[in-house]
């Protein structure tokens, strides 16, 4: 299976563990990813705040760069995924937008017809195109005993998602159940992490982060699985400051779902970037996997 790959800027630096694990897991599952040549930043939410047409034109350049044989574009980052999908959708729905975006693209010698490229999220791709049977067959390590809290965040499941429920998504839950993990059914799995508010109004963002961490702790999760770089950054890198802000002692490891999926597929921690997170996830995964073996021999 061949797909064009749009890593997005975060996966090049702050969320390198996501990129490394996406590539490693894809290789292990026979998913062929070809990085989109010379892709540019999707602008996250920051162009939409300033100029609607610039926002959509910047995003559309990436869609236009897809070759004729690149009909599916995979974006693991939530903001990139939504933006690519949103521009395609807006161009399809509004002829005037389509005309204006193409007028802008023409200044760079490009053109895009909406609907030509299908934007996919990696979770959908693994869940749907690989599927349960193949995933079970390729999983060499059971995640039995590990309590995981799948965290979907906002922009993959809302508002344009066609593969999961926008209020109560289940695809990651199901996937990790297949792999033997104990999946925590906590109520905030599609709530907001605060997004860029950590850089604007800290207090507002810290409260949202606290709600997520508190809930995961209450449901006795060993770790939280993310599918968005911003969520991972807010929950992981700001965790110590959120702890001191609320006088708590959070020690909740936050990793990307592809990292744990890689472990189940038999990859080493290093191959999937475990160790790059600030609150270490390695020890608890190691301990739970070791307890299985101890249980088996006892």
């Amino acid at each position: 299976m061949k797909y064009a790959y749009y890593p997005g800027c975060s996966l090049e630096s702050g969320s390198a563990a996501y990129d490394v694990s996406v590539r490693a897991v894809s290789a292990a599952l026979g998913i062929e990813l070809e990085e989109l040549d010379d892709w540019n930043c999707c602008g996250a939410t920051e162009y939409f705040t300033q100029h609607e047409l610039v926002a959509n034109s910047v995003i559309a350049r990436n869609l236009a760069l897809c070759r004729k044989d690149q009909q599916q574009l995979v974006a693991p980052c939530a903001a990139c995924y939504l933006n690519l999908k949103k521009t395609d959708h807006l161009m399809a729905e509004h002829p005037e937008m389509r005309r204006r975006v193409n007028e802008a693209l023409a200044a760079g010698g490009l053109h895009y017809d909406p609907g030509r490229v299908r934007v996919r999220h990696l979770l959908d791709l693994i869940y749907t195109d690989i599927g349960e049977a193949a995933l079970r067959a390729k999983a060499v390590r059971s995640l039995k005993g590990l309590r995981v809290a799948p965290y979907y965040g906002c922009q993959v499941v809302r508002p344009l998602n066609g593969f999961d429920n926008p209020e109560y998504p289940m695809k990651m839950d199901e996937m990790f159940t297949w792999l033997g993990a104990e999946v925590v059914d906590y109520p905030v799995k599609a709530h907001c992490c605060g997004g860029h508010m950590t850089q604007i109004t800290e207090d507002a963002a810290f409260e949202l982060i606290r709600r997520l961490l508190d809930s995961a702790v209450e449901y006795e999760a060993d770790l939280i699985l993310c599918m968005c770089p911003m969520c991972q950054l807010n929950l992981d890198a700001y965790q110590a400051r959120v702890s001191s802000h609320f006088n708590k002692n959070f020690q909740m490891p936050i990793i990307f779902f592809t990292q744990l999926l890689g472990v189940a597929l038999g990859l080493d921690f290093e191959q999937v970037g475990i160790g790059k997170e600030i609150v270490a996830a390695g020890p608890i995964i190691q301990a739970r996997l070791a307890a299985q073996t101890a249980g088996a021999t006892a």
Partner: protein
Amino acid sequence: MVTDTHSGHRSDFFREVIADTPGGEQLVHCLQCGSCGGSCPNGADMQYTPRAIFAMINANRRAEVLSANTMWCCVSCYFCTTRCPQQIPITEIMYALKRRAIAEGYAKDTDAPALAKTFTGFVEDYGRSFEFGLASRYYFFNKPLSMFKLVPMGLSMLSRGRMHLRPNRIRQVDQLRAIINKAREIGGTP
């Protein structure tokens, strides 16, 4: 009886907001139910919830709407959009209000426009965003006193190879700039 859903009967500002927002025509169907504010993770921090803002837009209270903090509390989580029984693209309307507020000088009490401008400035220089540059430039010019709080986090990120000190650059940055400049020149909102 004919129900008034035609924007012709609405205030000037109402029509302006509709014109600024793709799919904004749906706003005529607002029932004032309040699902939006009730769904919002930051609703409690808003001076006016989206429901109230829509009533104020209808009442042509332009300056009050554009100087409100409502849209600056929006983090684009899309819960309101998903839950709105009338399919109003509420998050997109919040973006439209942000754009108007910035363009007309109403956005004074928030650092969000500075963050947005710094972010997209790097995109226009390199074609990619640049986290280290963004954090240092944005905090230096907007929140210098908060910089010291970020040092431990920055060092943790740096020591794990998660912070690059130099930006990545795309090959055809000129092409991207030509597209951006053309989009600015065309201007307006669809």
